[in-house]
């Protein structure tokens, strides 16, 4: 057979988003791949330079649309550092609550989509059903299903509604029982193992060299998790284990994500218990006027110059559901950030596609790319 390049995407059932995987094939064998990104490039970093610090939050939700709260958290930590502000402790716990809920929701979305990729149909329904329960909980205190706009520089927007913690415990129990079924459906099925075992292998050294993080790195036997290695918010006060596997293949990534969801349940129980016992403020008192409430400064331009807010650099790194996300915020004393730079984990995970796709067959691409958990919004930004 002769070699040829084919395009998988931008509209293709495999892509789960808007990107193009150019594949060089010989018959069924993959000889080379070249991911082509940018179909969803919205210039978020540029728009952020034209917005106030709090207004960037609306972009963060849409940056990674399956893990909006994790990205809000990322940006908020960096901008608080750049603006020399601190949030009260209850707000930190609420942010952890948000991030873990978001991790559950994101992994359930991944489960629903990935398992459909390998040919099992009903788990899609189960995954979406259980994800909706989490989104209900999130909606009850953030006010939206997917784009939350919940965190603010210096705290969070609102406190939990009454009765929230009891409902949360119920949902956590329900999910705990469902995860057993998920495993029975997938790991107990021959189809799953035949399609996933030994596929898309990316060893630890390659992962580190190509900047791959998150479940892909942990499935290669490296128990690296920023929540433990470089604790932010209040993760150093919570007990949890880091899920890792050593097979470095698609099944390993499945195992890691399922175990991460169990650990998230464990974290959430502790957080909910803490929130029950410690009421308090959720927003810092000492905020500059244009941050305390989402008002825009109007009138004379000299206002900000007169105030002269101290300059600062903010850097944050957050263990997002897909991996390790980073933000770098440069504050030059104005009301807008001077420069915002984000590092997306999926960006690096896709850039290593050549390492884990070459040598497999075309039919293996959907399970492998499904196990990478591509979220194009955060790659293209």
């Amino acid at each position: 057979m002769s070699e040829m390049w084919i395009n998988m995407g931008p509209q293709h059932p495999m892509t789960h988003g808007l990107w193009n995987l150019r594949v060089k094939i010989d018959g069924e064998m993959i000889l080379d791949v070249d991911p082509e990104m940018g179909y969803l490039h919205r210039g978020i970093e540029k728009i952020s330079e034209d917005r106030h610090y709090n207004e960037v939050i609306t972009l963060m939700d849409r940056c990674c649309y399956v893990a909006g709260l994790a990205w809000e958290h990322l940006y908020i930590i960096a901008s608080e550092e750049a603006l020399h502000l601190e949030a009260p402790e209850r707000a930190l716990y609420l942010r952890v609550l948000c991030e873990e809920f978001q991790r559950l929701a994101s992994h359930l979305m991944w489960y629903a989509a990935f398992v459909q990729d390998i040919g099992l149909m009903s788990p899609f329904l189960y995954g979406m059903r259980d994800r909706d329960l989490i989104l209900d909980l999130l909606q009850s205190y953030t006010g939206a299903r997917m784009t939350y706009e919940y965190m603010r520089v210096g705290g969070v927007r609102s406190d939990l509604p009454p009765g929230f913690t009891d409902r949360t415990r119920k949902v956590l129990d329900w999910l705990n029982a469902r995860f057993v079924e998920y495993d029975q459906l997938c790991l107990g099925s021959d189809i799953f193992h035949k399609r996933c075992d030994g596929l898309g292998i990316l060893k630890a050294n390659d992962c580190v060299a190509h900047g791959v993080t998150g479940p892909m790195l942990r499935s290669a036997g490296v128990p690296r998790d920023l929540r433990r290695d470089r604790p932010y918010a209040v993760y150093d006060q919570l007990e949890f284990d880091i899920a890792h596997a050593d097979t470095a293949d698609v099944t390993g990534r499945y195992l890691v994500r399922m175990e991460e969801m169990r650990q998230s349940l464990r974290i959430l129980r502790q957080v909910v218990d803490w929130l029950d016992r410690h009421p308090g403020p959720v927003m810092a008192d000492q905020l500059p006027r244009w941050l305390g409430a989402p008002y825009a400064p109007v009138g004379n331009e000299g206002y900000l110059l007169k105030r002269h807010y101290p300059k600062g650099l903010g850097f944050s790194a957050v263990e997002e559901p897909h991996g390790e996300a980073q933000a770098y915020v440069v504050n030059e004393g104005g009301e807008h950030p001077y420069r915002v730079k984000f590092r997306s984990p999926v960006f690096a995970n896709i850039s290593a596609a050549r390492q884990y796709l070459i040598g497999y067959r075309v039919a293996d691409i959907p399970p492998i790319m499904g196990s990478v958990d591509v979220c194009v919004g955060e790659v293209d930004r």
Partner: protein
Amino acid sequence: MQPDDVSRVLAPALGPKLLAVEPFAGMAGRVRFERGAALELFPRVRDDLGFRHLSMVGGIDWVDHREVFYVVWSDAAHQYLLLSTDVPADNPRVETASGVWPSANWHERETWELVGIEFDNHPDLRHLLTPDGYEFRPLLRSFKLHEPEELEVKTRHV
């Protein structure tokens, strides 16, 4: 790891090309170096200091000059390190890091197309996020976005 530890390892080899190692919140430090020293610095940071993982490459346009920064992570120290170098705006060139850290490849492509920094000896400097042939550098300060009002006039529906 503290900034002193970093400079103790890097200073003998780089000499005056290492401008400063500043403390930086939550990080091992912020290494500022001359852009000509990139090829000597990167392998030392990776091998001698143990920062094997490059997380991010980005650029900032400071109007009179541009800055390129690299964020690297050490699994042993559990810390990040920020490397940054200034390049003049009229000749924004720096040596690529993708020979040392392969993960720099895409990050440098993005920095090239959005901030306009040329990476010498980069294996594959193509457009990544913007369409091929896009000649603007959107993240420069001189690039202005559409004004909402102006857009309003052009896209009126009613």
